[in-house]
């Protein structure tokens, strides 16, 4: 963790907040219930809630086991980390489009994309692991996502397509999940990041190939390691350009442009980093790319 001392602002506050668990959060699933009706139901049950400052369908819930709520079983809400709702928002899928979610399971972002498209158009949810297809399917069915087709390719070799938008929510060292369970940062190291980097570059390169010209590619991880973030994005800048990210109500820090004494090419400061002590969330990284 100390290797991030120079890139994470106010490092002592960062370390201190990791001991504090996160709020339980959920997304209101408008495929099955109107937002106002869901909020009424929570009020009737006396469950405290607070809407995110930056996303009207995200809620912090004042309840111990939100997964056991009837509203969850009926698919009116989906338990989802606050910043996990960010990549679909930046992807900005429109009804009728064809969208690829390259690393889909368990489907939190897939179903949010489906919700944003109002079940119109097509979402291809790709998940290579058979074991992980089951929760993906289950979440799509519970949430009433009817425009999702599931494939099982290795994302690096997903064969063909011409997608309006592609999401790569890549496998990563998950350092940003430390507040959900201590130890992910301790288990993480540069070597693990470099091993994952090969996979992440393969995924992002293929995602960029699969997008239409001018199509949007979102690359996200829940980790801090530049090896898994900016240094991955840097590899596709010949084929796509970065667009600056700015979400009202959510403070981001710019992507880093120097690491281990080396300066990266391109304007990687347009990437966005989210730190737990700044918005009281988990940690996250997102880049928005527009294919040439």
């Amino acid at each position, binding site marked *: 963790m100390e290797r991030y001392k120079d890139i994470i602002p106010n490092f002592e506050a960062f370390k201190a907040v990791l001991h504090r668990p996160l709020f339980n959060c959920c997304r209101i699933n408008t495929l099955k219930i109107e937002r106002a009706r869901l909020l009424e139901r929570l009020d009737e049950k006396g469950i405290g809630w607070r809407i995110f400052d930056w996303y009207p369908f995200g809620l912090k819930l004042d309840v111990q086991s939100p997964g056991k709520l009837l509203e969850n079983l*009926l698919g009116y809400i989906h338990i989802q980390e606050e910043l996990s709702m960010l990549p679909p928002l930046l992807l900005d899928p429109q009804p009728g489009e064809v969208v690829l979610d390259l690393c889909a399971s368990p489907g939190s972002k897939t179903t949010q994309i489906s919700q944003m498209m109002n079940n119109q158009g097509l979402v291809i949810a790709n998940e290579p692991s058979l074991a992980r297809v089951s929760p993906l399917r289950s979440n799509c069915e519970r949430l009433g996502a009817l*425009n999702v087709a599931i*494939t099982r390719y290795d994302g690096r070799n997903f064969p063909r*397509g011409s997608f309006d938008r592609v999401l790569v929510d890549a496998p990563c060292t998950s350092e940003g999940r430390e507040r959900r369970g201590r130890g992910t940062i301790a288990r993480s190291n540069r070597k693990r990041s470099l091993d994952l980097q090969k996979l992440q570059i393969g995924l992002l390169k293929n995602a960029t190939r699969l997008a239409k010209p001018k199509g949007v590619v979102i690359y996200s991880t829940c980790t801090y390691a530049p090896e898994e973030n900016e240094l991955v994005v840097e590899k596709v800048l010949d084929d796509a350009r970065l667009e600056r990210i700015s979400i009202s109500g959510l403070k981001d820090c710019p992507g880093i442009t120097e690491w281990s004494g080396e300066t990266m090419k391109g304007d990687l400061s347009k990437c966005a980093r989210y730190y737990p002590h700044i918005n009281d969330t988990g940690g996250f990284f997102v880049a928005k790319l527009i294919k040439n």
Partner: protein
Amino acid sequence: MNSSEVARLWKSRFGIPEKAFAGYRFFRKAQSVWMISASDLPNLSYEALGMRIMNLKDRPWKPTTCALQILGKHATKNLVHLNESQAMTFLEGKSLPVDTNLEPGYVVVLYREEVLGCGLYSRGIVISQLPKERRMTSCS
């Protein structure tokens, strides 16, 4: 499988109008029928297409709970309305006596006008067909 074949079965059992099935495509794989929003499907190898809505293996055919939660609001027959304590029993996955006169078979189970899921009705008893992972645990 074409849309009108599917619609005919749901109309006959639940009185759901054919127009509720407009805008979807249907696929049959083994004994299951899947429903997906109509759009061109790229030439890929698919693991699943949309939502599994019914199983044709047994007689009568069985609707899935997730499909009833979408389509059941259009149903006009073979509905069972539960009170609060009955709804809790149903959500726990148990059987419950109901005072109603229905054709034996699968029914749409509702509480406060909301579809909870699929039940199997026979001789005054509704047996909850909720999948295990969609049930409430008694302690909560």
